[in-house]
């Protein structure tokens, strides 16, 4: 059996076993004592502390704490385990009161962002690799500027060489903004090539007004447009692969603060109810 599949089966089995065990204990305890919610709550909080610790683990790579890969696997499956704990803790009921609703919504966003994050982390690298044109994220603005300068030079030179401003005019109208900055962010994320095809069609249509020399220029422009589109594709996906953490991590800390407040409130107001 291949390594990845074996590990998924191992972690999945552990998750199922832990979930069944916790659910069984909870069902037995829930009938026998009123404090079952405290057990599930503290367990949920303890796992959430461990999950939050993964972010700190990554900041101190020189400590011999094992491989990040294993910690991420633990993070993923323990994160899913918190879903079971959360449902047990709230007894499958929709929360009441604004405090609990905020807590639930925060938890839901953190959970969903985590799941989405892992889905794109597993799937999008394949898309980036298949598309080609690999480029480090921080080099993208430099390469974009180079492409823009090359395209501008082609358009400007065509005026003098062909004694016609057709290409330059087209550049000003359609290509200037395209080369000036990142374009078609959402289209790239959902793998839609309509904007690129539209632009290439317009460049193709332009050929009917051009002489042979100018057509060579548009052929070069088509190459640059494709390169710029590939660059935008890399940027859109690489940026999103980084940005989801800017939702997941800050909201995790908000959730932890909210959870601490929840614990304080529970202990503050539960004395009389015991």
């Amino acid at each position, binding site marked *: 059996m*291949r*390594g*990845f599949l074996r590990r998924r089966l191992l972690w999945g089995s552990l998750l199922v076993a832990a979930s069944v065990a916790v659910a069984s204990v909870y069902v037995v305890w829930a009938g026998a004592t009123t404090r079952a919610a405290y057990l599930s709550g503290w367990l949920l909080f303890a796992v959430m502390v461990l999950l939050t610790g993964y972010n700190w683990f*990554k*900041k*101190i*790579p*020189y*400590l*011999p*704490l*094992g*491989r*990040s*890969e294993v*910690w*991420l696997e633990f993070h993923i499956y323990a994160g899913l385990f918190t879903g079971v704990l959360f449902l047990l803790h709230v007894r499958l009921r929709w929360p009441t009161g604004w405090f609990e609703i905020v807590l639930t919504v925060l938890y839901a966003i953190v959970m969903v962002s985590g799941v989405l994050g892992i889905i794109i*982390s*597993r799937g*999008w*690298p*394949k898309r*980036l*690799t298949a598309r080609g044109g*690999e480029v*480090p*994220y921080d080099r993208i603005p430099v390469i974009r500027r180079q492409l823009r300068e090359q395209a501008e030079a082609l358009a400007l030179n065509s005026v003098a060489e062909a004694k016609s401003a057709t290409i330059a005019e087209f550049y000003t109208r359609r290509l200037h903004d395209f080369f000036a900055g990142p374009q078609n962010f959402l289209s790239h994320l959902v793998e839609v090539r309509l904007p690129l095809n539209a632009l290439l069609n317009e460049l193709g249509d332009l050929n009917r007004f051009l002489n042979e020399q100018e057509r060579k220029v548009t052929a070069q422009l088509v190459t640059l447009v494709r390169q710029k589109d590939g660059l935008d594709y890399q940027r859109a996906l*690489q940026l999103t*692969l*980084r940005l989801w953490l800017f939702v997941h991590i800050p909201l995790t800390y908000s959730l932890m603060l909210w959870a601490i407040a929840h614990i304080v409130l529970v202990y503050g107001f539960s004395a009389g109810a015991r």
Partner: protein
Amino acid sequence: MDTVHFVIDKPQRWDSSFDPDMTEADVNRLMEIRPFSEMDVSKFSKRTPLRGILRNDARIRRFKNGEIIVRAGDYGSSAFLVLSGHARVVLNPGLPASMLGRRKSQYKSFFQIVAQLWTNPRDPEVRTAAELEQDSGVKVSGKQRGVFLQDVPRILDEHKTATMAPGDFFGEIAALSRAPRTATIFAVGDQTELLEVRWQGLRDLLRFDDHLRHHIDRIYRERTLATHLREIPIFERLNDEQLKRVIEQTQFGTYGDYDWSGDYKRLAKEGTRSPEKETIIAQEGDYPNGVVLIRSGFARLSQKFGHGHRTLNYLSAGCEFGLREIAHNWLQRTDSVPFQQTLRVIGYTHVIVVPTAVMEEVVLPTVPEDELPSRFTAEELAGTEQSETQRKLDAGAKIGPELMEFLTENRYFNGTSTMVIDMERCTRCDDCVRACATTNEGNPRFLRHGQISGRIMVANSCMHCADPVCLIGCPTGAIHRGQVGGEVIVNQATCIGCSICSNNCPYEAIRMVEIREEDGAFMVDKDMKPIVKATKCDKCSDQIGGPACERSCPHGALRRLDMNNLDAFARWLNR
């Protein structure tokens, strides 16, 4: 704003001599001893005269009875000449590791590792005064503690040894080919005196004088070749007389350029790297005139495919070529088969050729038939079927022919710890880069960028090459092999910032940086020019956990792999 107030001298060649205690009297004495007495001093350049080499690149060492001079498996960058007394070389199977007193690796202690939380400097590339003064790699010290064998008479009884007498030279092959020592050599008696020449000096001696080169060739044929052949299973049944006959008939061949990186870089820039341009050692279809044994360097094994050549594998030190064909012809006696593949030199390759006649008359009769390579079948020769032997040889089939060509074309087979990134798993999060920077003076020691083939990227990081060409030309020996894992490391104390290693590295894995002192100010020399040092990946050799880049990858996309273990690479690819 940083202020500049730290002033040190910019180091020069021979500022840090091998032994500061070497005197003119010592040099005078050496000049009267062979092979130096036979050398023509006028052939040496004015910048590196013979006397200068002996004064600055050599040292006289005295060993006590049982003291180990070189240990099998250690990486060393110097050769030895016996001046007086005797030494013994332990022949195979060698001494157990426990007897050799292997020193523990210099890992940081757990407390030192935790202390990095508050001791890591805020600015990048800070060097402490202690780091720049220490010289644990090459500095000579009279107080250097040796390792002693405890019971020399018993070792002499229980192990096969050979005597090294005054005038004998050893360690030069390991030093020049940057390979691990093949045997342990220890002193016998308390009067053993040796001249140790570091490899920079040895290189200059060989360059300017033929005497030493001939001397080394002769000794190599007499001593090392016997040891080397004894290690190869097919020769292990030869008696002394037969082995002597084989040694007499054996031919040496050196192909390519010792300093091959410059040529490779030029070809890479021109985009003209192709198997057809590589020197052929043995050609497919030719009569097999001898078994080729790779002594050092690498060779490409390829087979005709369409109008080109398909790389099957690359052979490194210890591999043989042509044995199967010769054994087949000897067993079959009719319809001899020619070489089935072509062997081409890549970079620099040193080979030993045992002629077919000697193989047939002396070697093959000593080998039981079931231990000989399998004969070629008719289907195999017709190309309609692949045998088990061929399948094992065809590494391209394991990792894919495109990847095989990619590794060979770009000389990545040289890497013993190549940083390989699976681009279908890598999320481009740069956790590896950050981890590297956090662990190494605030600056990453690699670029997460490099050549790509399919889903595999080989990042611009030191690969800790089997043949580290970066070591060639270092004037002070600052860049050297680590004592334990053989990793290539830079001694910051003796690095003069000359950039030779950086320019030599074909993989652009060494970077020159301006260093700072602890308060963040740039260090400068007396001319107010910044002090520059070479930096590169050292595989986090002082960290208990190993390379931080590999440990920090959350998706298991990055791995340090030995490119000479393609089975492990194939397993990782198909994980």
